[in-house]
């Protein structure tokens, strides 16, 4: 399997998962579930929203990475492919776990996954940008 295929498959399945999470969050809003909508759970709401948004955005980044390499005819480095996939996992997971247990205005410890994911994402994106630049 090509590395670009791996990112495309991950991206589309990730999109399925995080669009579904969006539906779940809508339901929590719709039924006014206190665990999610109460004023005191503002941090949980923020974390889950960020998990949904980042999960969806990272799914699109993975799809874009896969399509870009195909369109431009170059091979996605394995390290880049894995970085983007892990960024797509760790970003939303960090926010999601950070929202399960909260400390008032602070998220739970799971949120510490987010900076790791950010490093992986930066590496993947910068690497693709550099590889694309060299193609010219």
């Amino acid at each position, binding site marked *: 399997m090509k590395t670009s295929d791996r990112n495309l498959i991950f991206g589309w399945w990730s999109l399925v998962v995080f669009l579904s999470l969006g539906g779940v969050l809508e339901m929590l809003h719709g039924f006014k579930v*206190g665990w999610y909508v*109460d*004023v*005191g*759970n*503002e*941090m949980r709401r923020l974390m889950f929203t960020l998990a949904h948004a980042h999960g969806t955005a990272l799914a699109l980044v993975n799809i874009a990475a896969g399509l870009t390499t195909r369109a431009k005819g170059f091979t996605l480095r394995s390290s880049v492919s894995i970085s983007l996939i892990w960024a797509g996992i760790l970003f939303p997971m960090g926010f999601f776990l950070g929202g399960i247990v909260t*400390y*008032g*205005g*602070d998220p739970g*410890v799971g949120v510490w996954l987010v900076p790791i994911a950010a490093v992986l994402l930066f590496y993947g994106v910068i690497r693709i940008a550099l590889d694309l630049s060299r193609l010219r």
Partner: protein
Amino acid sequence: MPKSSRSTWQGVLVLAVIVGGAVMTLISAYRARREMVQPDNRPVQATIGNYVTSNSCRACHPGNYASWHTSFHRTMTQVATPASLLGNGAQTDFSLNGRDYKLERSGDKFFVRTRSLGGDYGEPREVVLVTGSHSLQVPWLEAKNGRTLEQFPFAYIIAEKIWAPVSETFLTPPEFKEYYSIGAWNGACMDCHVTKGQSRFVSGDTWDSRVAEFGIACEACHSEGREHIALNRNPLRRFKIHLTNKVDPSVTNPARLAGPESGMDCGQCHSVWAYNGMEDKLDFNRNGTAFRPGHLDLIQRFIVQPNSPDHGEQKDFIREREPDFFHDRFWGDGMVRVTGREFNGLQSSPCFRGGNFSCISCHEMHPTDTRQVSLTNWARNGQLRPKMESDEACLQCHKQFASKIESHTHHPEGSSGSRCYNCHMPNTTFGLLHAMRSHQVSSPSVRESLDYGRPNACNLCHLNQTLAWTADKLHNWYNQPEPELSSDDRTIAASAQWIIKGDAGLRALVAWGMGWKPAQDISGRDWLYPYLIYTMTDPYAAVRFDSWKSLQTLPGFSGFPFTYTADDRALKESAGGALQKWLREVKRPDTTFEQQTALQPDGRFQRAVFERLRNDRDNTPILLSE
């Protein structure tokens, strides 16, 4: 049109949009800045020391902010606005003691104009602040003298949705006409009704008062927050505290203090306190409280307990300067008798000696359930913790009684008589027109009624029973010695005696108690009518108010109209009307009255008994302020 000309016009249009946007932004910035200019006719919020206000706490503690925001602590003092000034559309014209008052609205502001009867209305004076939002609200007017405030002589009784003279919203002698003098808010009320208030006396009647925040906000209980915020910008520090459950020394958390320190956090205001001396008073006046939450020492002040050995010199000084000070706040044995001063009771309770008992044993300031409906109920219900309206409040410590409630109380389990707090925390404190539970945990005795005139818990529920009946029960059940009793104490219901011959504070408690459902259920309702109707003409307005409220709980009198602040003639007419209504429309022909109720078979008072008791009335003037 040439191409270059068209793009020039487009450029001009873009430029015009940018300039227009910039001008609009400047205008709104100017307006915002103008609105930020502090008014000079009232106390203002200012940056004081390391206080940062609740707005700064909100970002990191949204749940706690939400519960505080729903509480009546937040709204204790507010700037007067259409939203905060309650009852602003209910009445516009007021009259009192030969003066007329007109309350008017102009935009979002309110003004009061005053005239002597027959004269012209004077210059409008702005209503600038309001104090209270739970039971009662008092509006404050600019005094046109610095930041000094003057009392609007009427208060809004929130539950009744009526305005009444302020002097008649507290238990005050009838000859008492003005409750707060000019500057009283600056000099006294703001000691506790704001966060870190600085009265700042200038001269004469002039004050230059400022506060860290209006209302009782986060920093009143948790101490000032600037250092706490600065330190906790570091996420590593925060997570270290979260994960190790360590105490953050940069802020006070009453929930993690020992009982006495935690209680003092509330007690800094919810107590009868006095200054250690004139220097401390001046320091408090200029700089505000020096007390830091988490400590036991109020520094400039002390908790006044009549019987404690401390501060003897200061207490002697108080006795000399204000002879009624103790009488107006405490029962004869030193138990506090006014509401809002619960820490005095807490501190005198045997439970307090254990070291863990504090206000938050039963109350909570920040419920975990932050749904608005839950928060509203919590705020209206004394900010009690879950289950604290049940025996659980006491059983959380006194576990040994859980399995023997019936044998200990001699009342069926689950009945109101078996409730711990009905016997050990009866409604013997009074303030803001209603009775409230004593926060001094004690055991009922007949001696407390004989020696100090305080209604005992048994007769506050068994209203139709005599003191002899109570003495007999307490002797048989708890081996209490039987005191020597008068003939009346053996034959006339204790509550009937108290409501006729007690002092005004006692009469108010019993008038309120006659409307208490558990007492009505056990004592019967039929015989209460004549007592409550008679008390509607009591010289003390607060007693009349509670009689009226209790009468409304009786069958046939729901919604009965009565102006408790009316003149004597109108009061007598209303009471006469109520009596006729009861005799003709409500009382069943077959109603009988027990001997100890001192009523004739037709429901009227036994004249000789009534006259004797009334002649024995304790007419000592009494002023029970909250």
